[in-house]
């Protein structure tokens, strides 16, 4: 066995262990902040797996999008609303946990079954394109995958408009949640910068 293959196997083992343990931690840990940071670790390790598969562009995109944007936003949101309060104890938590565990285990067994029955090896030995993959991804995105690409951007636009509507209540005449008319004066007062009021 050559050194390169040994290194690959070691890296793969470490990465998959980190992914499994990290993902379990995300679900099972009590502290939501730890869960969020562990999620970042899991995303990083997935990027590492992509690197092992010679997909360096996908790995970098994974880091940029999932770690740099999604995870940062999650942590950001947690920190903005992080109130230290005791949550109300949920009644019959035990039976709920049993049900969710059994559902998860069923899903896991289904996935294992898929893994075992499906034939994963490619029919013909294909050459790895390596560094050229960036160009190929671009070509595919602007030809046969153009529609999904554009639909995804429409989805993002919708999310953005929704966020703006939620954040800027003053553009609406009615309150979104209660349906009552909005007191415009109050909103204008609160949206003015503090410094201009002090004369």
């Amino acid at each position, binding site marked *: 066995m050559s*050194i390169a293959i040994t290194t690959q196997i070691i890296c793969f083992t470490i990465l998959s262990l980190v992914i499994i343990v990290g993902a379990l931690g995300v679900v099972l840990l009590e502290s939501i*902040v730890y869960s969020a940071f562990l999620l970042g670790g899991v995303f*990083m390790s997935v990027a590492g797996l992509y690197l092992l598969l010679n997909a360096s562009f996908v790995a*970098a995109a994974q880091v940029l999008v999932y770690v*740099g944007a999604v995870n940062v936003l999650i*942590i*950001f949101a947690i*920190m903005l609303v992080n109130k230290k309060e005791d949550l109300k104890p949920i009644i019959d938590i035990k039976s709920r946990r049993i049900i969710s565990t059994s559902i998860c285990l069923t899903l896991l067994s289904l996935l294992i079954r898929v893994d075992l029955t499906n034939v994963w090896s490619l029919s013909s030995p294909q050459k790895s394109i390596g560094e050229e993959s960036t160009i190929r991804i671009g070509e595919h995105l602007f030809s046969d995958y153009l529609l999904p690409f554009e639909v995804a951007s429409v989805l993002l636009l919708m999310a953005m408009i929704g966020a703006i509507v939620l954040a800027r209540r003053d553009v609406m005449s009615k309150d979104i949640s209660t349906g009552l008319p909005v007191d415009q004066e109050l909103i204008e007062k609160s949206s003015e910068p503090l410094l201009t009021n002090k004369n």
Partner: protein
Amino acid sequence: MEYGLDLEYSFNEFLKGFGLSSEIIHIIWLPLPMLLVLVAAVVGVLVTVWLERKISAAAQQRIGPEYAGALGVLQPIADGLKLLVKEDIIPAKADGILFTAGPILVLVPVILSWLIVPFGQNLLISNVGIGIFLWIALSSIQPIGLLMSGYASNNKYSLLGGLRAAAQSISYEIPLALSVLAIVLMTNSLSTIDIVNQQSGAGILSWNIWRQPVGFIVFWICALAECERLPFDLPEAEEELVAGYQTEYAGMKFALFYLGSYINLILSALLVSILYLGGWGFPVPVELIAKFLNLPINAPFIQVFTASIGIVMTVLKAYLLVFIAILLRWTTPRVRIDQLLDLGWKFLLPISLANLLITAGLKLAFPQFFGG
């Protein structure tokens, strides 16, 4: 274009003489460039710290460090030693694990980004295909470390500083990436080597700064904002937030933040010089000079000479930019947070988008000037 020194090849040939297999040689070779670049980065930080002290002193009509070594050149080493032997304090109510992991997460991506900084045709750690994209991806990890240390300190100022840092770096990453994209469009490649080679045609005249003046300014402003340098040092604004996310840090953990910010500054300066100022290129192409002097370009002596000129030029351009950054820090006031976000989202983002569009148009209209 395959010329220049290939140290790895010569190293291989040298060790093969001792009868070692090529795999073993590769393992021996691997850490060498990394170590070299790491040492270069740390020495660069020491120099920058000294420059910062001296230039700030000059800007404020003081003398600055004077007694440690000639002109105070040993002052940064004294600073480093002091931080090294200081007690490492973790506040009683802080979160120990996150408190320790935060500074590491800030420093490691910055150091990893040095992977793609070329000092010559073959003088870089790894010519990865995704090149400059790797830097953009890695620099997006940093806010997590900042948020982590801000949260773990269990201090209002730290948390605010961490949140500000994350918000700032998210907003300025987008125009930064867009202005890099314009360069990539002209080069047809993400690799830093290709980006420099594309600018090497006619010396100073073919540098990207003439073809991308708007991109250059946008990139420089965004790079300063990403480094949290004044006028954009809101995350650690002393008058408002004590020291932002680093308020509770002391000793070596504080030193990691310190190192990280200065390494990041040098890295940004290096990348500006690579993307816009011709990288290792001399203002007059070295090949032209060699032809003029009737010297063979492939002779070993000339090769060593051009390689050292390349390193000197890269470092010189980078330090010129570092000088400008230091001068900016000590002469400009800090922007407010709303001004910062306004500048990022309402000015730099539309401008860099327009710049990208115009670059694409010019590339199609004048392929010989804008990389066909």
